[in-house]
């Protein structure tokens, strides 16, 4: 270490001591009384003329905070393919596996391994798709994703991601909360806790699902031990876009406004009596609820988009679809939502029926995402948003190079079992090295042989791009500081621009 490095380290440690998230939040809360009163309710003092109560953490726990370090992106769109998509039919081309098709799996791959369903000795299953090198990067993409081929140079692949969980629920939890057990905050919760959100009329952490809720349930967007205000808010395509958003029959907008004014006026009287700042927070929250009632339906309405955009994504207005959700994700990010989490259900290609066969149902699933994802990348790019947004694509694990056998029986359709040893994910957007491909699996795609990447590495990298040092970004709970990446995680500089 050079002297200069030591010096800069010294300065960094100094400044660190004074500015942790917690301090910031705590200081805010303590200084609240006077500030809030004067600003929120109009009796402004000259120095606080421009004070907006929505930007005060104590009045609004989602008020934006500056990132602690230099940030490459402002928001995240995370596309999770629930059930675990088959890397072997999408991105990880294995010609050698084709040669071994239908041959019994070598014992060396089975010894001491546990699979969810495979028992006994399964046969190898060659790739059930055609592959080609595409774009300037020459990265492999299968013909299941024809549109995606045109934007392949925007993304950076991680070809040797691994996880130690091979059941859906625990693996999804690990991917989104850094732990396979329940009770930890999700990635989106950490991010909105640390950064707040830009648009106070929309939730800061939005969840959009197509096909159903992920296996691990709502805990994958839960706030764990963080305050529940940081949990994901599910925005829905059917019914109220946010639960209880719609005014009931008998209450027009103008009457609702009067309802809220009455509530807030009475609450303000209580504030004058009790002088409890929490009452001011409530007044603020009711105003936000009222604005949200207008803003959320606007954002959730895709009909107002021009036809060529709708066609680009292939949306199906009025339905719950992944395409609609991709367009909604763009709209949300455009409006300043911090974290948009998409879950698309139906990727669990066991081959127990037509829908889960890797040569049949999987092709349909790919078709459902191919166009929307391509459109999302292009649309963000044309709006200049791609550079400040991070897109993450992946599942909770990958799939075996062996054909699944279940209960020792012959399977009618071609399917693959759960596989955590090696699978593909990709990232795109701000700070990502375009066209990169990091990591490699062996000839049959069973294990990573180079550039193995853990779930915590990906989480560390996402936090890094948002301006956090994942080792410093902690929350004290049960007597110890917790972090998303637990005690692991290395930033993946190999895919950073």
């Amino acid at each position, binding site marked *: *270490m050079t002297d*200069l490095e*030591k*010096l800069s380290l*010294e300065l960094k440690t*100094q400044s*660190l001591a004074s500015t942790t998230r917690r301090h910031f939040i705590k200081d805010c809360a*303590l200084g609240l009384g006077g500030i809030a009163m004067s600003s929120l309710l109009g009796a402004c003092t000259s120095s606080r003329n421009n004070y907006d109560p929505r930007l005060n953490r104590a009045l609004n726990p989602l008020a934006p905070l500056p990132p602690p370090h230099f940030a490459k992106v402002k928001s995240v769109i995370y596309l999770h393919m629930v059930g675990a998509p088959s890397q072997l039919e999408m991105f990880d081309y294995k010609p050698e596996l084709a040669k071994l098709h239908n041959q019994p799996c070598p014992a060396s791959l089975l010894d001491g391994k546990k699979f*969810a*369903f495979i028992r006994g000795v399964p046969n190898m299953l060659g790739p059930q798709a055609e592959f080609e090198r595409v774009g300037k990067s020459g990265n492999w993409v299968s013909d299941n994703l024809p549109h995606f081929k045109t934007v392949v140079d925007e993304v950076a692949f991680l070809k040797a991601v691994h996880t130690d969980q*091979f*059941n859906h629920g625990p693996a999804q939890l690990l991917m989104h909360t850094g732990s396979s*057990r*329940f*009770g930890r905050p999700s990635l989106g919760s950490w991010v909105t806790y640390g950064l707040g959100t830009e648009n106070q009329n929309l939730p800061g952490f939005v969840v959009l699902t197509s*096909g*159903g*809720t992920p296996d*691990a*349930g*709502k805990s994958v967007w*839960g706030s764990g031990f*963080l*305050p*529940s205000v940081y*949990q994901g*808010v599910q925005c829905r395509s*059917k019914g*109220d876009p946010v*639960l*209880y*958003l719609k*005014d*009931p*029959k*008998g*209450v027009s907008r*103008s*009457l609702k406004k*009067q309802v809220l004014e*009455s*509530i807030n006026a*009475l*609450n303000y009287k209580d*504030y004058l009596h*009790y*002088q*409890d700042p*929490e009452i001011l927070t*409530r007044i603020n*929250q*009711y105003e936000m*609820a009222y604005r949200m009632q207008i803003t959320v339906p606007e954002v959730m309405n895709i009909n107002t988009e021009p036809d060529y955009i709708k066609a680009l994504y292939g949306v199906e207005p009025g339905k719950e679809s992944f395409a609609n959700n991709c367009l909604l994700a763009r709209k949300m990010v455009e409006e300043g939502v911090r974290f948009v989490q998409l879950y698309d259900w139906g990727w669990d290609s066991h081959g127990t029926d037509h829908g889960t066969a890797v040569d049949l149902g999987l092709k349909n699933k790919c078709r459902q995402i191919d166009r929307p994802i391509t459109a999302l990348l292009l649309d963000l790019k044309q709006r200049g948003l791609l550079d400040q947004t991070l897109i993450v694509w992946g599942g909770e694990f990958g799939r075996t190079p062996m054909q699944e056998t279940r*209960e*020792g029986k012959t399977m009618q359709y071609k399917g693959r*079992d759960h596989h955590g040893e090696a699978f593909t994910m990709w990232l795109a957007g701000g700070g990502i090295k375009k066209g990169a491909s990091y990591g490699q699996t062996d000839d049959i795609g069973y294990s990573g042989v180079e550039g193995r990447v853990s779930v915590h590495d990906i989480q560390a990298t996402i936090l890094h791009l948002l301006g956090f040092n994942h080792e410093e970004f902690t929350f004290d709970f*049960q*007597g*110890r500081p917790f972090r998303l990446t637990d*005690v692991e995680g290395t930033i993946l500089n190999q895919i950073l621009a």
Partner: protein
Amino acid sequence: MKLKNSLFFLIILFGSVLLYRCDSPNSEVDFSSQVKPLLNAKCISCHGGVKKNAGFSVLFEEEAMASLATGHPAIVPGQAEKSRMIQVLTENDIEQRMPYRKPALSREEIQLLSDWIDQGAKWGTHWAYVPPIKNEIPSLSSSFEEWGSKAHPIDGFIGKKMREENLVPNPKAPLAVLARRAALDLTGLPPNRILFDSFVNQQMTYSTYLDRLLENTAFGEHWASWWLDLARYADSRGYEKDPARSIWPYRDWVIRAFNQDMPFDRFTQLQLAGDLMPNPTADELVATGFHRNTMNNDEGGTEDEEFRVAAIIDRVNTTFDVWQSTTMSCVQCHSHPYDPIKHKQYYELMAFFNNTRDEDTPDEAPIYRGYSANEEKKLQSVVEWVKEKGSAEKATYFERFAHVLEPKFQLHNCTDFVLGELSDSKYLALWNNGSAYLRNVDTQGHTSLYFYYSAGVEGTVITLRKNGPKGAVLGQLALQKANWTVAKIPFAKQDEPFDLYIEAKNNRLGPEQNTSRIHWFAFAPDLPGKKEKGYVAIEKTYLDVLNAPESTTPILVENPSFMQRETRLFERGSWLAQGELVTPNVPENIAPWDVKWEKNRLGLAQWLVSDNNPLTARTLVNRIWAQLFGKGLVTTLEDLGTQSEPPTHPELLDWLSVDLMTTQQWRIKTLLKTIMTSSTYQQSSQWSEEKHTRDPLNTFYAVGPKKRLTAEQIRDQALYVAQLLSKKMYGPGVMPPQPDGVWEHQYLGNLWKESKGEDRYRRAVYTFYKRTSPYPSFVSFDAGSREVCLINRTPTNTPLQALVTLNDPVFLEAAYAFARRYPYSNSPKSIISSLYEDALYSTPSEERVALLLTLYEAAIKEYTAFPEQLIAFFGTEDTPEKEVAALAVVANAVMNLDEFLTRS
């Protein structure tokens, strides 16, 4: 280069400043309150339970004083200057200086550590590990006039500190405010109007008022909600499939226990070890549901043993979270990073829990099978038969077997499959000519085999042989087509353990077709009186009863001696890397073990509630206090360990803890009444500018407690004031209205079947708790998902909450019903005034009524102009008069007031 050098020089200068030491004489340094927090904050993450860099750890005294690799200890008692530990704190080079690559310690901090070493480096015990003593109550005579001369112990302790801080208490809250506060705190509901009036009109003392509230069965329902968060109670099993679970009898047991004011020591023992009580009653067994609230993974392809172990680990962690305010989950992988608990001790604790019969199976065995009165009568006829033909002892055996059906062998433990496999990784499924082994079966010489199976085809014969395909036939099952049925066959007597070889035959089946699915085998003696008339009927009756349980509550049942599991330490917490063998033991540095206790769960429970355990009573007092004041005497409710915040009033915490264990006999109602009769509790919750400045967090309790109501209270209160709330108690979880699509299962569809009639309006505690999709309005108001123990719900204040109470059909229905309580009159003003008073238990000022009247008139105007707005008003099927509708709008507003959503 020049710049670099000069900057570096600056650093050296800075370092030299750090070296400067103040030589003034120093007072005695206290290890626990001064040194330990500093070590924990600055040193222990690299020199503690997780990492021992340079071989140095400050977790245990012997480690801190030991010689390092260099041969010298880092701490030389009496000689700070010779202690390496102090030297490294003042190094100039940031690469050498400790904490490594972190900001240097302040001069004062270094001084403190130096003084401590100079004074002999005396180690100490963290306050929470020293048993509490009953400190003398500070005299109130020096305190405040407002609090009178009659000393309440709590006020003595609180008053002393307040005076030291030059604060004065608030006056007593107005009686109406106090009445609502106490009622919501004890029953979760606003007070009954008659009771309220007699208290406010001073026809009833405060003490009697509290007694009435404590007698109300609503008390148990309210306090159960608090306990059920700790117990992680839910009506579903969790994980991917998250199917329903029938464990509500445990929830009802908790409600009853609170209402009976069961002493907390007994409450503890029954929940942790009710099954180990002599001849346990149904209630005692159901109480053990506490630890069957762990999740059960029914996802296809999951390894049952992995999730059995996960459940056991959760039981260890939860026990320590709930009773000891100690985070055990850290110790799973390594010694505790901060608290003096070693890695091995975790597994010694796990050994207490590791010998129960449950194995993460889909039937959730062991379960307590409750029978309807009719079935119970049939069972008693069998019991009578056994008593008559056999013995009273045998009768008890068969009665218990009918209720518990243990021990049994789960067939997911089968191995060596030929033509067959586990179906869905759960049940034995053999094809024609298929076979498998169940190893090491001990029948205890029993000759009846009960088994649980499902078969879609007729004609299967399962033959059971001893030790292998050539072995003697021990029994044969001819399976009829059936959907999960208990059946029985005779079984050849075996006195020694053996391997059971199971083979299936059904020539009618094609290849790879399952003959059946078998869940378990259980061995029992034959019913006595085989040769007597009526035996066949009795046998049938018994089997019929076994097949007709009304309720099935997961419970704990200890493994019999021949099924004992050994417990091994998990290396780095991984259940696949099992190490050293361990036996049940408690961390005796917390509290000593009494040899008269058995080394089982019951002994563990006795240890937890023993007088010498310093953590249990403090934990309970702290959390009950927090339920009333919104924060604990130790603000870190989940942790009393060395990383916790120090108590704001340590002597009070200890006084109450000892009082709870002795005078109060562990009774929670007594503890509540003790706290609530203090002047501290009865203060007005009004803040002043001065108090905001002087004590913004109300650390010294000069302001009475104000709290936002819990999710459950918010729902219950709305239904209560609307006079919709059902008084029905107990029973399976109910499903009040929730929006469509909230609980949509991928392949099972919408499983939320809206309850009809009274069940729509039950108290929140009875709402079906679905782990992967909890009731939406509860989630908005900070309820958890009950997947793991939740000690503290952090209250939040969000726009989504406003949307719930403004727009959720449940709250709209309540507002509409509330409005309809008032017959139409010509004076909306007086109606509004009554409505306000009925909701908030306080008379509104003219000004407040005027504000609401303006809203009422605006609504009238709107409905006059647009009468179609009244059709299907508030989502109901009604078209009310515009006056009723306008009043409902006012009710909706009132039910959203801060005053309504909180209790002052």
